[in-house]
């Protein structure tokens, strides 16, 4: 193998696939990246046997071939070297990197030993979304999760595709967020709908790597999912198990429907957090006869405070207690200026969404009181 490549291209490629490399005592080659030169392209790949990532880098291929080298060392070189043009050449199991004033030999391992990254069987059916839209949508639902060993099926994001909509949902059983992408935002060649659970780790990788407005195609078969852009590919297993059928717990009616400025609400919660006690409790109340929302918190050791923020209120709301972190998470996801906050008494879930938005909602349960 012999290639000439621009340093920044190689660096970006390695950065994108770095996290998919594995640490495995039995199989040390997982610490390496596979470098594959063929058909005028340079392809980099890593895997930890749960997910596999690959990235195609532009470069000039002088001689086809394959090699592997430790990705940490490769990245170390890319981050510090000054030269722009690099020559990569494999000699036996080792890889040599040369520029006009630099030379390195990396101890590699035979490329034949590198795991084969599986392929998705169904290569024709996919759903495609713009990177930034996919990224934003996933970010909005992922903040309702929390890794848990108790219910592994919740360490995932639900991708629910049905002909004209793609729905994302995630929950940690205290709160749940759902985002729907409408038909205008997606393109699909799928003949039928699907409902799959993508592991959280995979989603975090997607969030980390994707950027720009290029199209991401999502392929899947019975136990794998593949995210593919022009340069980048990420394949992952799917989680087994059933995502809770949450339709029934999404509240339809509210005791109080509140419209409030998002930024003010955020400020109020941050103020409340100053007095937040261990369980992160914040009390929310609509004082009778006032057009305002009272946000208060207290701690026996610190003291107490309360904050009145102007709000449009329909209905009544007695004191209801929430976890302010959960509320703040919701406000991070709701990006509009005005926020709709529907609350019910008696421990029924509350719902947050943008005032004029229907594509996203976040529900959370109040903390029950005696």
């Amino acid at each position, binding site marked *: 193998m012999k290639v000439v490549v621009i340093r920044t291209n190689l660096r970006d490629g390695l950065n994108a696939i770095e996290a998919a490399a594995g640490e*495995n005592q*039995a*199989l*040390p080659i997982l610490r390496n990246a596979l470098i594959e030169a063929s058909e005028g392209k340079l392809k980099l790949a890593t*895997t930890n*046997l*749960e997910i*596999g990532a690959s990235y195609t880098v532009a470069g000039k291929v002088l001689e086809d071939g394959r090699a592997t080298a430790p990705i940490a060392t490769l990245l170390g070189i890319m981050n510090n070297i000054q030269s722009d043009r690099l020559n990569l050449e494999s000699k036996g199991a080792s890889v040599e990197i040369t520029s006009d004033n630099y030379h390195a030999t990396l101890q590699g391992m035979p490329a034949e030993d590198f*795991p*084969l*990254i*599986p*392929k998705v069987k169904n290569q024709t059916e996919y759903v495609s979304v713009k990177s930034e839209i996919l990224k934003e949508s996933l970010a909005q639902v992922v903040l309702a999760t929390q890794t848990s060993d108790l*219910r592994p099926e919740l360490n995932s994001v639900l991708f629910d595709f049905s002909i004209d909509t793609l729905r994302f949902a995630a929950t940690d*059983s*205290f709160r749940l967020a759902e985002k729907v992408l409408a038909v205008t935002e997606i393109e699909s060649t799928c003949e039928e709908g699907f409902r799959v659970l993508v592991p959280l780790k995979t989603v975090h990788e997607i969030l980390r790597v994707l950027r720009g407005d290029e199209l991401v195609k999502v392929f899947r078969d*019975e*136990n*794998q999912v593949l995210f593919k852009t022009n340069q980048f590919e990420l*394949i992952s*297993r799917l989680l*087994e*198990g*059933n995502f*809770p*059928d*949450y*339709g*029934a*717990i999404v509240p339809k009616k509210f005791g109080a429907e509140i419209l409030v400025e998002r930024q003010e609400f955020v400020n109020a919660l941050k103020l409340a957090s100053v007095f937040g*006690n261990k*369980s992160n*409790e914040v009390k929310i109340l609509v004082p009778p006869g006032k057009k305002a929302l009272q946000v208060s918190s207290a701690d*026996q050791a610190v003291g107490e405070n309360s904050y009145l923020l102007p709000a449009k209120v329909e209905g009544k709301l007695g004191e209801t207690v929430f*976890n302010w972190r959960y509320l703040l998470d919701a406000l991070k996801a709701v990006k509009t200026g005005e926020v709709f906050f529907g609350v019910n008494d008696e421990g029924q879930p509350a719902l947050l969404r943008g005032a004029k938005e229907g594509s996203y909602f976040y529900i959370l*349960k109040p*903390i*029950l*009181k*005696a």
Partner: protein
Amino acid sequence: MDLDQLWKLTLGEIEIQLSRANFATWLKSSRLVDRKDGGTFVVSLPNNFAREWVENKYQKNILGIIRNFDGSARKIEFVVTGNFQAEAPAAKKISAPDLSKFDRIELEFKVDPETNLNPRYSMKSFVVGPSNELAYAGATAIVNEIGLKYNPFFIYGGVGLGKTHLIQAVGNEIRSRYQNKVRPRYVSSEKFISDVVWGIRNKRMEDTKKKYRDVDVLIIDDIQFIGGKEKTEEEFFHTFNSLYEANKQIIISSDRPPQSIPTLEERLRSRFEGGLIVDIGYPEYEMRVAIIRGRLQEASRQLSDEVVDLIARRVKKNIRELEGVLNKILFYQEKKQADITGKVAEEIIDKSIQNAARRITDTQVLKAVAEFFNISLGDLVSHNRRKEVVEPRQIAMYLLRDMLEMSYPGVGEKMGRDHTTAIHSYEKINQEINRNSALSQKIMLIRETIYKS
């Protein structure tokens, strides 16, 4: 040859051909799962990576080896194991809403920080029977007339009989009935002690005092633990007095009556005795059945009458244990999706309670007594009448009778004595125990070592 055996042989041969790392990574959790018509063998592998690798690299080898053992082999297919397991649950109820989980996890958040009360305990869910109706009546009277009728209200009874339930329920009831006009506060004596220690250490005793004197109903659980901690006792004494004089209600629970808490100071003891002292006894059979039925209804689950009867008959002395057994049975029912028969229930009960009661033997009792008084086993059963062995001997006989329910002649035989001696010893200690607190404490300690051994 069955599939497992065939696969074992095959793996044995492949293992020699591969490096240990490769074998461990790719083939360790593989299985031969099916032999289809036409000589197709199906191998399951743990993940897609393994399938990709084995399919591409070892397929021929594996086929060759299998063919050596089974001439009909023509082809090998690989599947990922996950699929096999997924098929069953995936087909099942996708639509069942998972609301219960939503509720369940949140229970931990529910303790009210202001009153420290856990709303799970309510008067309604307290099952009343002859053994605790006096305590219950006292509790209801208190809710109606806070601080006036029975003050202090002292409840005692054994472990797991509902003391904490009842006193917390009083707090919850008061809170819901008088809204925020009456402030109850529940505290375990351990928390009280640590607050006093905190106050002393940080020189902020005033804060601690205020925290406890600023309530309308003070509920203290397991008061026996403050015995012997002088400063805490003193602080409690003053708190007690200041609340008492202001006609605030005080509710106390303990595992034994005030006169049997040996390290408790006299002035505290007499204060406790000034109010109403009630005990909670062991629940009767009917009550145990009622408790089980109540819990089942709460969890909206069902068990056959036979099983309910069985649990109620077998678990007698501790309601917490009763609920523990019930939970285990319900868990089993949920897990296996199977009906619980009397036999299954019996097994579960056996497993859960044998540790507590069954293992105590007479030798264990004698050993514990001998060890406690630092005398030899021989001394204990000898005819020596020195003072330092006479008392231990009588205690040993008392415990044999009391804990193991041995007959008097049995006790006598064990100790090399006449049954009349056994009767005398038992009765003597039995009387003494109520008068002599040092003795009752000794016996309690011995009991503990026996249970622990």
